[in-house]
């Protein structure tokens, strides 16, 4: 990301904000109303943050995570202590950003990373609830919900990751050689993170 031109930088920011906003709106007005078995829904915002962090590094990841979490804290039906999602998503964004730099880029690794991010996010959020003594986050509920939550997140993650990659790539198409339309995500990650000119 260090040698990306300035124009592309702002465009990338706009794109990031758009991705998060769309994920948030889809989350509250579509995903949360799906009558899924178990009553747990995938956390699209978390997945979007993880994907963006994997694409563009820890700095973007944590700032995006913080802002996305803050938005998730104040979006209307939210009724928990303000700042919880901001904290959790910020940490997850940071960790996934770090991981993206260290990652051995096999084509399945990103998906494992997303799954790990989802697990960590769900556990951390539950932990903040328990620390604050939230009556909703008592042990019985948490132990029931977190595994289901992770399963749903993992099921939904390929779609979200694919969508995020698609959007970021479309944006980048101008200054990169087009062609590899259906390349594996790993190559994408490498290309997106801007550290290598291998494509």
């Amino acid at each position, binding site marked *: 990301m260090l040698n990306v031109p300035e124009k592309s930088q702002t465009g990338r920011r706009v794109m990031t904000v758009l991705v998060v906003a769309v994920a948030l709106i889809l989350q509250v007005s579509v995903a949360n109303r799906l009558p899924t078995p178990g009553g747990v829904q995938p956390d699209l915002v978390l997945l979007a943050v993880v994907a963006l962090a994997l694409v563009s590094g820890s700095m973007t990841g944590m700032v995006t995570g913080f802002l996305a*979490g803050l*938005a998730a804290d*104040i979006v*209307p039906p939210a009724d928990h202590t*303000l700042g919880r999602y901001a904290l959790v998503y*910020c940490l997850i964004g940071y960790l996934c950003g770090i991981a993206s730099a260290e990652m051995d880029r096999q084509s399945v690794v990103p998906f494992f990373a997303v799954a790990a991010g989802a697990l960590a996010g769900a556990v951390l959020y*539950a932990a903040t609830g328990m620390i604050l003594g*939230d009556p909703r986050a008592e042990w019985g509920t948490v132990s029931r919900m977190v595994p289901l939550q992770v399963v749903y997140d993992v099921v939904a993650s390929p779609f979200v990751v694919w969508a995020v990659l698609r959007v970021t790539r479309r944006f980048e198409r101008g200054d990169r050689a087009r062609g590899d339309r259906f390349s594996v995500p790993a190559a994408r990650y490498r290309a997106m*993170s801007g550290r290598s000119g291998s494509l």
Partner: protein
Amino acid sequence: MKDTRRTRVVLGALIVTALAMITVDYRGGEHSPLRGLRDVGAAVFGPVERASASVVRPVGDTFDAITDAPGERHRADRLERENQRLREQLRAGRLDQDRSAQLQRLLGTAGAGGYRIRAAQVISAGQGFEDTVTIDVGTRNGIRTDMTVMSAQGLVGRVTRVGPATATVLLATDQTSSIGSRLEDSKEIGIVQGRGRRGLGNGATPLRFQLLDAAAPMRVGQRVVTLGSQGERPYVPGVPIGVVERIDNSSGGLTRTAYVRPFVRFTSLDVVGVVVAPPRHDPRDAVLPPKPAPPPTPTPAPTGKPSPGASPSGDPAKARPRGTKSPHPRPTSED
């Protein structure tokens, strides 16, 4: 990107900010200084959610209509497009019909209890551990906090936060919700608490009813209505909540616990009503649907005007018919 010093500084700053916000909001409780942020959220995201709900609803319903049209080109093309349009019209018509039927039923229920309601539509739902939804009415429509929200089937919850055009409803199944309630025909009172719908299986009951008098009679199939709060806020009296499905006999405590299946299907909430004015008289059991009667003798009190004799609304003092076993010892049945 490498983990530079700058990154760490920013991370530290963001975490400290988040922790500070959590602390301030947690300590502040209801009067938290960060309320303003939430109001901003409601003002910004409320209209967006309304818009997205109006888009998402027809799209979701017509999606399969679009996908199941096979791609036969040429001659069929024009016909197909027309067919498509007609089908969508039909769908839209059915949607409207469906909604108007829901409104009808809601009005019927509200009329039976004498509640004055403001109809609303659910536009979004909360995530994480909370059981909350947003509805598309707000201060502009005269909605205030602590108003009862009901649907045609029964109690939905109460309004906890109001924005200009949207309001947040805490559902009865939320774990922080507790509702003063009463068994039908006997006047035994108790508390209905939410257990959280998330992570429970499909057959589970998301409400827990604690009968305050451990010795009072209670049986499976008995129905529960709201008792009514002081000043009729947040809960107005007489709104049906659910049916006792299972009684926990093990405890020797001060209260008895039962599990209640709600009348409302919380997974598919759509048209709801906010009670803007409480009834003049406590409707008692009048709002409950007629008892499902297995022999074809249509007996019980029809849901007509309030208090048709189900209870002379004058003697709440005689509120303890100890031995009155009511003659319907049947297990729960409907829907």
